[in-house]
Structure formats: structure tokens, C-alpha cells
């Protein structure tokens, strides 16, 4: 059967300065050792991952964004209607951490509290060159309501944990919202409801809902 009723669709964007390891993180997460062999094409910009957390089915669509500065202005096109964002910085590069802060500001301004944030301090295998103190980063994260993770795409440390925690947080957010206003919240990421059409019942009017485009 084709309908994926009862499953959640979450969109997650990866944001961060160039070369901090966004692409590496998502590749590491989605194309684990077993998988690298059967995916012939390496496409890093859009990846799907299905999770099942204690019976709740989640479809993660992970969007890697363009990192070059000249594309910065395109950010909103990519992150609109996202449920979660992974903000990546390189622990050896202080500037990349500042960049994370500016992304947080922008996201909170544009999407408010609807979006779940995690901040990833990547390249922990280069601990000896660390330029961003863990304490600062964690303090900052808790201040802005984000969860902080230390990751190494190279050594596969903390990557799965980060995405799993993010997913759980997105689940909570959506469920809270559903509980608050049950009939209203099915805007973009929620349970996919199959519309039942009876013999003599008129199908629902076409949705005027925006498909993620303003």
C-alpha cells in the first residue's frame, strides 16, 4: 500500500560556513559502511533516511545547503518549512562558530521556535587545534535553546547520536503542537492523512496551502 499514513515527514537543513564538514556529516550519517556499497551515485545535496523510533515512523529529508558565501542570500529558499536545522562549525575555526551564531539569529527570526536546532562542533579528532572552547559553545547553545554536540565525521563520532536526538526533539515539538491544537497543526510535517472519499461525498477542495513556497 502506497500511503504512508501515520508517518512523520521532517525536513532538516544543514547550515554552516564552507568546509566545516556539513557534507561529510550527512554522508557519514546516511551512507554508513554497509550502505556505501549499494548506493552507486554519491549525491550529497539531498538524502532521505527512514527511522523507526519505538513504532513511530519518521522520514528524514536532509538538505545539504550551498556553503559558499555568494549563495548566502539563498538561505531562506532552502530552510523554509524546515522542522530542524543542524548548525555546523569547525572546532578549530573560531569564525565558523561566529557564523553559527548568525545562522541561529536568522533562523529564530524567520522561523521562530518552530524549528529545532542542534549545533555541531565538528572535527573533534583535531582536538589539539581546538579554537572554540566547549564550555562557551555549550553555554551559547543552551542560551538559544539548541542542543550542542561534538562530532567527528572522520571518526564517526557523535553523528548518529546527534541526528537521533534532533529527530526525537522534532517529534516532541510536533506532538506538543498537535496536542495543543489538534485539527490545525497538519501544515507541513505532520501525519499524512489519507483523505477518505465516500461515494457521494465531495472530495475536499483543492488545498490552498502553500507547498513551501511563499
Amino acid at each position, binding site marked *: *500500500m*502506497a*500511503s*504512508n499514513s501515520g*508517518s512523520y*515527514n521532517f*525536513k532538516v537543513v544543514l547550515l554552516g560556513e564552507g568546509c566545516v564538514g556539513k*557534507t561529510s556529516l550527512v554522508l557519514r550519517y546516511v551512507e554508513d*559502511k*554497509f*550502505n556505501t*556499497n*549499494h*548506493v*552507486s*551515485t*554519491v*549525491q*550529497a*545535496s*539531498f538524502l532521505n*533516511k*527512514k*527511522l*523507526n*523510533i*519505538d*513504532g513511530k515512523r519518521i*522520514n528524514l*529529508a536532509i*538538505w*545539504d*545547503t*550551498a*556553503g*559558499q558565501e*555568494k*549563495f548566502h*542570500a*539563498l538561505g531562506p*529558499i*532552502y530552510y523554509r*518549512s524546515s*522542522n530542524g536545522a543542524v548548525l555546523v562549525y569547525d572546532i578549530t575555526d573560531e569564525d565558523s562558530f561566529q557564523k553559527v551564531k548568525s545562522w541561529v539569529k536568522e533562523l529564530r527570526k524567520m522561523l521562530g521556535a518552530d524549528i529545532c536546532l542542534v549545533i555541531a562542533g565538528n572535527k573533534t579528532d583535531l582536538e589539539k587545534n581546538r579554537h572554540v572552547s566547549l564550555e562557551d559553545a555549550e553555554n551559547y547553545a543552551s542560551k538559544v535553546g539548541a542542543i550542542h554536540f561534538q562530532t567527528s565525521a572522520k571518526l564517526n563520532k557523535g553523528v548518529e547520536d546527534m541526528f537521533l536526538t534532533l529527530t526525537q526533539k522534532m517529534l516532541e515539538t510536533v506532538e506538543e503542537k498537535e496536542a495543543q491544537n489538534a485539527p490545525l497543526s497538519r501544515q*507541513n*510535517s505532520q501525519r499524512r492523512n489519507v483523505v*477518505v*472519499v*465516500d*461515494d457521494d461525498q*465531495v*472530495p475536499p*477542495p*483543492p*488545498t*490552498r*496551502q502553500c*507547498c*513551501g*513556497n511563499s
Partner: protein
Amino acid sequence: MWGLQYDENVHDNPFFNEIITHHGDLVVKASQEKWVICIPRAGVIEPSEIQVDIILDHILVSTASNVCFTLSKKQVSIQNKEITTADHPSTPIRILFEETCYIEGLKYTIFCLDRPLFISRAICEDNRFRVLETLHDCIDFIWSENLSHVLIKIQKLCSSFVEQNRGLAMENLQNQKDLIGSLFSQCLQIVLKNRTLSDDCENIKIAVETYMQSCLDRTLVKAVNTVTCFGDATLNKTVRNCSDLQLRDLNIPLKFCDIVTSARSELSKINNYVTILDKVNCLKLTFNHLYSTSICLTSDDILQILVFLIVKLNISNWTSNLVYLTHFQFSSLNVSNETNFLITSLEAALEFIKSDEFNKIKSSQQTENPVFQSIITNDLTQLQDLLKYKKSKKSDANLCHPLCDCERCTKSIGSSHNVTMFNEKGQSLLTYATTVDRPEMVEFLISIGAEVNSCDYFGKTSLHYACAKGYQDVLLILMNCKADVNAKDHDGNTPLHVACNNGHENCVKALFYTSKTLDINCINKYGDTPLHLAIKWNYVGIVRSLLENHAVANVPNKKSQQPLHLAQNYYTERLLKQFNAHLDSLDEPEFTHPSASTKSSHCKDHGIRAKGVEQLKKIDLLLKAIENNDFPLTCFYLGFPNGSTTYDFQSKCHPLCNCEKCDDLEGSPDVVVERINVNTCNIDGFTPLHFAAKYGRTELLRILLDSQALPNLKTYKTLQTPLHLACIYRRLLVVKELVKCGNCEVDTQDYKGNTPLYYACVKNDVKIVEVLLSNGASCDVKNYQGTSIIKEVQEKTLFGISSLLKKESEENDFL
């Protein structure tokens, strides 16, 4: 999702349930050892078949390579999301999806398979899960669901929709969406009428929607083209002006050259399709070409390649395609799927092209030569120095003869600093100065004897480049210095062709102003006239200019396309027909609502079109004067005797005054010579009477009417009469004046089918409504949406008006 992917909840799958309930230890082990559990999708395996050995066949022990073993020690290989077994090497089994489970503290991976492994049975095509990817798939699907009888019904519904909504293109986007959306509901109703709910409900919706789009064919595409035509014109202008963009300008590594080429030929087909599904599929295939490389492509690469493809492809309606894809999907609810990613990527690429960042990229002009360098830096003194320096030195050069142009001598001159020198593209200094928009340099170079009409290796003159880049200042200098306005480059393009292709209306107009010998219907190597090019790229303004200057609209090009065939939106189409009445019979019937078109005869409906730019300019000045309430100036432009006023418009405020008004007087003595007909209209079809009505110039209006101004002329686009405007802008006195002029039609319908009374009611202007009603305005006229005025008024709860109307219609009934 479009082309819905297979999905099922494996925890409802009997095969998986069997494992969970009877072989829990296997799951625990799988979690520890990172084994993968394969589950045949629901329904492909009989419950009785689910035995232990079969289950062991379906548990894969992961290895580093793509060959691995099952727990039953059988070998399989995994590639391209397909599993190949030794017993059926030619029919691999699809992995429909992969799921990572975190359940009760365990973590394991599941592959859901299209068929069971190692169970030989006839592979029945019908039984395979379908992903709808094209129109073809959809029609097949409808047949396979025994729904073929609905096809003809949907088709009929669509044809009558097209009949009834001839004005679709003139509607705004939201209305278009609503109309198409309700058509979709109707189509769906036909299908679902005699049907119980099916599992494949989503697929049915997709199939129906896709088939509906194919029935609407170009109608819908053209409507969206029309809504987006100005956006597309702007985009095309940007794109045309950087058509010499190279891969390296975008930092695209050369190793991508091959995939870019194949992706390009795929994407070039996007306009061959009319359905969203097919267009999305075209995007997907394009991306697949990109992914076919072994090099890892990041979002940056993809974006840059897309930008490059858009610039290089000959497609003129990207915005329209994007709007169509994003706004006209009704059966899809899901936003976070791959389709969405494809469309978003296209959107991002288009957005980038429109941004300033892209402007910066445009191929940079680089040169080593100091003379050319001085032109770039706009350093006139240095340029003079360099050329002077060479002049003295030139006498030393051993030329066979001062005017010799043998190879040796040319070479010695060519490589030297001299006004005739040229760069590696064969561009003279003058041409080069033109390409970088340096008017002073151009003037200087011509003054020291630069050849105005010299060509580069592409056969392009300086004038070509001025037109290509839209540099009007340079163009005017060149025209002033006798540049050949009809020079052809190696593709047979004249400067006018180039200006039209690149969307530079300023240059097109400048060419008309400055040249009497311009060959407006000249054809290039492909048989295209400038009109062909302007139409193709949606430059409505240029199309109008060309037509006003008597461009011929029925010249076929080498592909036998007449300009009309290239028209992608209703604006250009209508312009062409307006200017060439005989074209009407050529193509589909003219757009206008059937009831409106019964009395459609352009000369009577609309004002007299201004002939040529000069007259247009005059009528614009006249209308401006009306708008500014400058009564004397208005009379002056109309050539009315100043009987009604004592203002002496021939005299300035002061003999030497140059205030605006006096300037106008001075600058336009020839304007007065040829007086403007009172019924002349501007490019949008507005006559002086329209303006007088709109701005409430009652006195002027009276004079105009006295001077044979026709009261019932309509504007081009909105089909509104002066009375419409007077009601919209609530000009009571004007309305009174118009209705009493004798031959004013009170119930004319505009492009939406609304009468003046409608507007007066909506504006809640009781006085005007009274005047209209007492002059016979009817309150039961329905507009093209089918709403009558009374209904509208009731909906808007305008009680005062409502009672007025009721009284009126009761009286009528009584009579």
C-alpha cells in the same frame, strides 16, 4: 509525493511479525552484529511460506564489499539499491526502502524488498509496485485500475473548461489556481463516484491530475506564461546579456564538462512536456545525469551547474515553469520530498541569477595590453598619451608605403599602439570601448579617426555591442557618427536584432529615433526578424515598439515559425492581432469573453492608435497634462482654441524663463503644428476622455465630448470605458456628464464582465448608483464569474445600495 514512493509500516508486515514474535533472538543478534533484516513487502509472500529457512535467507551479514552472505550462507550482491541473487542474476530485486529502527533499546536496519529472495516464481509485472513518473505511467495506471472510461469524461470536462475560461490567462495567479483547483475536484469526483476507497488513492489523484493537465495542454501553460511574462522578460534580459558565460566563470571544474553536456540536453526538453509530473521527471533525469559522475557533487556544484544550464539553454519561460511547478500541484501534500528538492534547486538557481552576486560574476574583461587597459580604467589622458606616443614612433616603423596593408606592415601596425589596433577577438579600440561602456573614450577615438563600422572576428560592429549591452549613450554617439544601422554580423544579425534579443528597449527606441533607414524586417541567418526575437523572449514592450514601427508579423523563419507562433503569452499574442487584423484567422480565436467579442471590432472599441514614437510621446504628454490638471497645457496639446480660457499659452512666464511649462512650450513647436485627434489613445488604450474621467476633470471632459470624443472607447487590457473609470474613482460629476452626453452605453462589460454600476456599488457610492440607475443601468448583469451585482452587494452587506437596487428591480418587474 509526486511519483509516490513505496511505503508500508513494516511492523504490520506478516513476515516481520513472524520474526519478531517467534525469532526475537535473531533481532537481538542482528542489533549486536549489525545484520540487515530483509522484509518482502506485504502481499508478495504467502503466510504459509514464512518458514525458518526462508527467514534465514533474508538476513544479511554485512561486509565491506558489495558482496555479502545471508545467514543461510547464500551469496548476494547489492548495487544500485538492488539485490542480485545467484539463482536469478538477470532479475535483481529492488530495495524499496531502508529503515533504521530504534526499538526497545535495540537498533537494527531493515530493507523492504519488492520480492522475496530465493523464491523462484514467475515474476508478474503487474504485481510490481508502480511509481508514477510520467503521463504515460499515469494513463497506464488508469487503464490498469479499470478506469479507462473516465479518460474521455475528463477530456470533455477539460475542453468545456477551456471554452468557458477563455480569459484564464488574464486572471491573476490566485484565480487561476482556484479555477484549476476546482476543475481538479470535478475530475476527481468523476473517478471516485463509483468506487470504494482504494489503497492507491494517492496514486489515483496523481494520475487524474496529470491526465487533466495533459488535456488542458498549452492553455494552462500559456496562462501561467502570461502571469509571469514580465518576470520572465527581466530574467531573460539578464540571461541574454551573459550568454558568453563560461564554466570557469562559475568556478565549475572542467571535469564536470561531460555531465553538464548531457544534463543540458535533458533539461532542454522541459518545455516539451505540459504536465507537472513530466516536467519534474525531466528535472530528475537532469539531476541523474549530474549524479552519474563518480565525483561527489555538493549543493554548491549543483547550484552552479544549474545556473550555467539555465544561461545556456534556449528557454524563455523559466519563471513560468517554476510557478507552474510550485503552485499547481493539488494532489500532493508532502513538502519534504525529493520533488520538492528538485524544484527548490531550480528556484534557488533562478533566484541567484537575479541577484547582484550573479552580476558580479559576468565574464570579467581582462586584458594585458596597456592601451586596452587604459580604456577599462577609463583613463583618457593615458589613452591619449599611449596613442600619441605611438604616432611619433610610427614614422620609424618601416612600412613599405605609408598606406600599405601587406601582411608584414599590418602586423607591425596591429601590434603597435595605434587607433586601428585590435585585440585577440579582433575588436578595435572603439569596439572595445563600446563593450565596456565608455562614452568619452568612444567620442575621443572617433575624433582621432577610429573607423566607426569596423568589425571584429564575429562580424560585429561597435553598434552591435552597444545594442547587445544596452548602452544607449554610446549608441547615440555612434549613430551620430554615421554608424551603419543595418550592418550584419556573421549570423546575419543587425544591431536591432541584437537589441531585441537582449531585451534593451532603450536601444530599440533609440535606433528608431535616430535612424530613417533602419530595416526593421531584416532577417538573420535563421530567418528570424527582430520581431521573432523580441516575441520569443517575452519582451512585450519591444514587441509593441516594433509593431508600432510597422514590423511585419507574418514572416516565417527557417523553421517556418511566424512571430505569432512564437508568442507564449496572451499579451504578445493580442498585440500581434491588434496590429495585424488579418492574423485573427490564423490561430485560435481571439481572447475575450464570448459575449464581449460579439461586437468586437477594434477600430470601434478602442481609441485611435498613435502612429510612431513621436505621436506616442505626444499623447503621453497630453495625458500627463490632464493628470496634472494643467488645463491650458491640455488645450494646447489638443490644439483647441483657447476660447474657454484666458490663459495665453503662447507666452512664457518670462521671456527667458525655463520652468517646466515654458520648456514644454519651447521644445514642442512642431507638436502644435499637428494637433492630436481627441480619440487618440496611448499604448494601453487610454484616451484623453479616459484620463479626464479618471481624474475627475469635468470641465475638460465636457469640452472633449463637445469635440467629438467618443464616450464608449475601451482600454486595451482591462476593456474599460471612461464611465468605468469614473465609477471606480468615484467621480460623480463626470458620471453625470457622461450619461447625459446622449450616446453613452451604461452597461458595458469590462474584461471581467463588470459594468460601471458594479463598480459604483462595490465602492458603496450611493449617489453614483442612483445616477446610473436612473439612466437605465441594469442590475442583473452577471459578470464572467457568474456573480450578479445584487448578489455581490448582498455578500458585501452594503445595505444602502442593496435597498436601492431592490427598489429598482421591483419597479422593473412591476413594469
